[in-house]
């Protein structure tokens, strides 16, 4: 503690009982108390903190706002937690190069607000964007509804400043289009704090489109809505966003937000198109035609910005609205080929029903990124085992359909031990090479991402107190 306080000052380190708050993130995993919690304000302090951690052979778990859902910031080893929320400056906004340099603790939505006045935005828009940090977005390679056409965080990060496990500061990538060397920037994005500590980010700025059109369509059959998603893409249209919400959840959201969602539908699609006035006009005609042909019972286009904003507020409030149905939910994140949506949604519904539980779906349908919400009441004895089995069934159904473990939440500890179901031993070993090359002593967020037997840590299984 003394060494840490020497680096960040007495006000920059937390010991005692307050450390408890930093055991876990927004996932359902409860960790253990960290050795200490530190709040650096500068890259120099981060370098010095890594030096202290190295001297005391104590790992560092880096976290932003703690909104992660896969347990990437949960403390499961004896560790120091390094919180980036005091590194929260927007360092530079450069519209000529379409780059903004930010510190990792800047909130996603705060940056978006800053960019409004210069007519640009940062494309990734996670549902947690009011609270999540850009450092967290980089760590998890976060997505959001508007990543369908433009890609997740890695497509919008030009360069990173990181402090490695050796305590050395490096710049990865660059603001030019083809920096020399291997794409270490691409390797770092999505590495969940296991390869380096990000201290500054050059995010790419996207000019705001001249026109936006948003369509809300309802279906009286979930399968028809799933098929319509593929039909839109097959028609050669790649919307800016293509979201699906099942009907019962839409009804709950409507009761919560009063956004104008249908209350008797089986499924709702929210489609957004952006670009030039002419291209949006043409694609709007194409999308509405496809949706009607696919059996939509209603197809409406937002009449104005207020209506559009209301629909999006409803979409982004879905997780909060769940509390009106059950006190607890377990949110999953897998991706399947979009043509398998109908099949996999049905398999998930049946698997969850077999456990006597209920699942709702609100997800990024356009890129096949599922977010099943398994509802439960944690006070019910034995319910967690059933929830756990539902999670396993969701993973199994997704992988069997040719899908992957995560589309935007990351692996953390939630899916760490599922990695062997997607990758064989040789493929996991290659991932381990990457990790061991940059952090041979397992100083940074050990026991995450790679399966226990493969990770650099020696943890064989989750310790007591870690639950799902």
């Amino acid at each position, binding site marked *: 503690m003394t060494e840490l306080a020497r680096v960040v000052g007495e006000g920059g380190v937390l010991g005692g009982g307050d450390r408890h708050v930093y055991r876990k993130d927004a996932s359902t995993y409860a960790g253990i108390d960290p050795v200490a919690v530190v709040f650096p304000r500068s890259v120099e302090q981060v370098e010095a903190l890594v030096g202290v951690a190295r001297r005391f052979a104590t790992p560092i778990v880096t976290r932003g706002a703690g909104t992660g859902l896969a347990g990437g910031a949960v403390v499961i080893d004896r560790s120091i937690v390094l919180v980036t929320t005091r590194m929260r400056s927007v360092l530079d906004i450069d519209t000529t190069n379409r780059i903004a340099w930010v510190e990792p603790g800047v909130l996603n939505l705060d940056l978006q607000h800053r960019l409004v006045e210069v007519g640009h935005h940062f494309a990734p828009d996670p549902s947690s964007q009011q609270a999540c940090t850009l450092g967290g977005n980089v760590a998890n390679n976060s997505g959001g509804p508007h990543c369908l056409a433009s890609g*997740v965080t890695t497509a919008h990060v030009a360069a990173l400043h990181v402090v490695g496990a050796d305590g050395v500061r490096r710049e990865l990538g660059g603001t030019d289009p083809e920096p*020399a060397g*291997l794409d270490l920037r691409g390797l770092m994005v999505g590495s969940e704090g296991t390869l380096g500590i990000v201290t500054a980010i050059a995010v790419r700025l996207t000019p705001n489109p001249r026109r936006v059109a948003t369509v809300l369509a309802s279906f009286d059959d979930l399968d028809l809505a799933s098929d319509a998603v593929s039909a839109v893409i097959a028609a*050669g249209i790649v919307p800016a966003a293509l979201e699906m919400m099942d009907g019962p959840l839409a009804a709950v959201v409507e009761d919560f937000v009063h956004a104008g969602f249908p209350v008797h539908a089986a499924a709702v699609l929210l489609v957004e198109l952006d*670009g030039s006035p002419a291209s949006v006009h043409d694609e709007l005609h194409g999308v509405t035609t496809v949706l009607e042909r696919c059996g939509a019972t209603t197809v409406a286009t937002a009449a104005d910005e207020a209506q559009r904003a209301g629909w999006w507020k409803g979409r982004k409030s879905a997780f909060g609205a769940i509390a009106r149905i059950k006190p607890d939910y377990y949110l999953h994140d897998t991706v399947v080929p979009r043509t398998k949506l109908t099949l996999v949604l049905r398999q998930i519904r049946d698997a969850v029903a077999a456990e006597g539980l209920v699942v709702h779906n609100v997800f990024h349908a356009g890129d096949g990124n599922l977010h099943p919400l398994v509802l439960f009441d944690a006070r019910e004895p034995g319910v967690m085992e059933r929830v756990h089995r539902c999670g396993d069934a969701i993973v199994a159904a997704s992988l069997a359909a040719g899908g992957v473990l995560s589309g935007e939440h990351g*692996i953390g500890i939630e899916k760490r031990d599922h990695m062997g179901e997607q990758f064989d031993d040789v493929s996991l070993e290659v991932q381990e090479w990457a990790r061991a090359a940059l952090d041979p002593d397992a100083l940074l967020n050990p026991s995450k991402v790679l399966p226990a037997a493969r990770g650099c840590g020696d943890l064989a299984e989750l310790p007591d107190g870690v639950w799902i």
Partner: protein
Amino acid sequence: MAGDGSLDGVAAFAVSVGSTGPVRMLSRESAAESGDEAVRPVFAPRTMIDHRPADMVVEVDAGTPIAVLCDVLAAAGQRTILDGCGPPGTTIGAVLGAGRSSVDRLGDGSLTDALLGASLVLHNGRVATIGGQTVKNVTGYDLCRLVVGSRGTLGFLARVILRTRPVPHHSVWVRLTAEPTGALAALDRPNAILHDLVSGTLHVHLCGGDGYVAEQLDRLSALGQPEMIDGPPELPAHRWSLAPASAAGLSPDDIGDSLVRAVKEVGVGIVHADRPAPSRTLSPSIRSWHQALWDRFDPAERLNPGERRRVLS
């Protein structure tokens, strides 16, 4: 991909790579150029495996020429952003290994966004799966991005899964004389704006439907007199990479005396010139991470020996 029972071509390629002795991955067409008898040439398989238009992915062997891929996809109204990344006979593996985007990067994005998954033959002759089959995937470390541009120094691409896109209704190139930053500001999502630094001419690539192309041509008409042309201009051989604002401020004199041609990609920062780009030097700390990765991925430097120097430059 691993587990689908169709690895014959990949498995045979892995056997040819083996686990000992230096090997260089070549295309059949370039085999005569290997030049070094001490380095054994190997050839990636070249079969179209599966195109799933509704999922917008294609699975194809890395030894397949990009022109073959282009023809197959075009029949289904799709394409990849590998188009234009080299002469038609260039293999997919060579394009991804070089990691150089086409002149359409302004609209298409970086080449690194194209690779979704791959079978990678390792230095020990084994085959790893990296990435996946879906258009969105953050599972584990993003080794696909690490491999693109690595010139085979981390492993040899045997089979790849690529993101596809719809072929636009219209693909129109026009030429005009106008101020480049004005054109960039006036247009919505142009696929490319090429500015010839010596002649001052702009070459603009517009991709979209009838309405979009007409709308954008109207805007260009306010800046100059657009003239339809068949395609992009021939580009000088050397490639400079600059921040877009630096490229915008570049004059022919900045590149060299007696410059014949230089063409910059407006809004991107690539400059094609008939002079080599100044050499770039990576910091020792960045080089140390490269070496640490190579020590793990190919400790004896048997994969494409000599290419590491080109990766670093």
